[in-house]
């Protein structure tokens, strides 16, 4: 939790400390591959840019991608899953078979294919990752809704004439929230890794924009002389994912009235 807030703060204040043009993008070849000093707490990269500043800026990009992708796929996938689960029958079959087709393709491969079709860039990366995550959410929500839709309180709501959308959004979704939140925070972490992976492969954020995966990719060539170039972005990814996982657990407990004492 604390780590996560720290990351968000870093992401938010980084533009105040560092100027995008001078500190992040501008190359300063005289300062190449410096070890950590007081001026550059995590050293500099192959182009003489401050690693800490780039990681801080990268946090903005990574977190943004993570949340937008998960948010969008949650809404779209969740919607598909919820109606499939609730209405069942043919609709369920058709929707889920389409999702199965997508699920059969490895997620990263699907994302790569989409980016290859649309071309690299932040927006396309987000679209690609979202599409690749939708089926997982459709599955998840469907499986969460299925046991809930036969609960007696749902029947009670039907008996009192509550309309279908209110039942889905008022009764079913709140009760499916716990696993959904945990899963989503895990998914944000996963997305950050995927985005980093895509960037690493050169399919995501293009240089010189700072992004953790892209930084890893750039740093890998210098791993022998300047391991800090790989080490620190890697640690940033790990910390972000770890803190998101812990956050998910915390949120689940906090949102369940049954666990509040």
């Amino acid at each position: 939790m604390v780590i996560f807030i720290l990351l968000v703060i870093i992401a938010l204040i980084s533009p105040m400390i560092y100027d995008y043009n001078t500190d992040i993008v501008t190359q300063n070849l005289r300062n190449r591959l410096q070890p950590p000093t007081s001026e550059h707490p995590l050293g500099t990269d192959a182009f003489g840019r401050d690693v800490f500043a780039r990681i801080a800026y990268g946090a903005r990009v990574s977190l943004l991608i993570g949340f937008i992708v998960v948010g969008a796929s949650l809404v779209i996938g969740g919607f598909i899953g919820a109606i499939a689960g609730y209405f069942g029958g043919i609709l369920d079959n058709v929707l889920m078979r389409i999702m199965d087709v997508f699920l059969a393709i490895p997620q990263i491969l699907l994302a790569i294919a989409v980016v290859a079709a649309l071309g690299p860039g932040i927006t396309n990366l987000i679209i690609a990752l979202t599409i690749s995550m939708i089926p997982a959410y459709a599955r998840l929500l469907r499986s969460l809704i299925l046991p809930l839709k036969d609960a007696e309180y749902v029947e009670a709501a039907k008996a009192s004439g509550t309309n279908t959308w209110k039942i889905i959004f008022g009764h079913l979704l709140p009760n499916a929230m716990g696993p959904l939140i945990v899963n989503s925070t895990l998914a944000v972490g996963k997305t950050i890794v995927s985005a980093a992976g895509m960037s690493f492969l050169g399919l995501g954020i293009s240089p010189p924009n700072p992004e953790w995966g892209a930084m890893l990719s750039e740093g890998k060539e210098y791993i022998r002389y300047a391991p800090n170039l790989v080490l620190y972005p890697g640690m940033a990814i790990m910390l972000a994912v770890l803190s998101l996982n812990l956050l998910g657990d915390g949120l689940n407990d906090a949102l369940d009235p049954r666990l509040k004492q």
Partner: protein
Amino acid sequence: MNQPLLQTVGLKKYYKVKAGELHAVDNINLSIQESQTLGVVGESGCGKTTLGRTILRLVPATSGQILFRGENILEYSGKQMHEMRRNMQIVFQDPYSSINPRMTVYNIIAEPIRSSGTRLEKQNMDKRVRKLMDTVGLASRLIKAYPHELDGGRRQRIGVARALALNPKFIVCDEPVSSLDVSIQAQILNLLMDLQDEYGLTYMFITHDLSVVKHISDNIAVMYLGECVEHGPKDQIFANPLHPYSQALLSAIPVPSLAARSRKPYLIKGEVSSPINPKPGCRFAPRCPHVKPICTQGELELKEVTPNHFVRCTLYGSEKP
């Protein structure tokens, strides 16, 4: 006789399963007069719960009619049915699964009012919810509480308040007390009876517990494997049960008195068979001590043995009054 408030005519609910057709509710003809209680008794799997849900159109009926004040609600459009739901409500068996654990008491009780399309200002809604809570004996300080903070008896009171929220005429009570402790059970039974007196409610009371049914009902229908095997006024059913299954059911209840100790219960062999693709004739025949060849030949009719007391059994000929 007046027009009954609710009547079913040849109501059927079949489920398609792998092995064939499951006759959950088969050809049920019942009627309930306004402000009276019909007790529906039977063991697990006899279709009594399905019957209640079919009547409320929570599950679609296979065929037959459900007449509410003479109108067949199975022919109602979605909009008409939505209006109709104000009149028909349900109280469930399990006070743990029947209320949404994520909602406060206030929201649970207010939901039917909101869903019915009635727009109430916050203040009036507040008043209405408090009034309902008071009616069912819930302290109004619990208005913001979540269900998990309350015990089974209080939860069941919430369930009753929710059912009452729209001022219904007819309530299906599906085993409303069977998951409660005896002392709490008695409190809820008293509450239901008081409410009936006060608001002139009509109940269909579904239960497996004959002593409860005797206490609360005016008329009783005994169900076995989807069929109604006997129905009639409470006193007649208890004083003079006609169907061998009713007799067995009655004598199987353990009575808490010394006198009952010496009485040998009238045991029936075997267990309930499957309601999937039932054989023609009496469905109780495999367990019946009086079974004759005629019992499994052709469908049996409900016969009126004494006024209003019907039984589906070959032991009672139509020639007898």
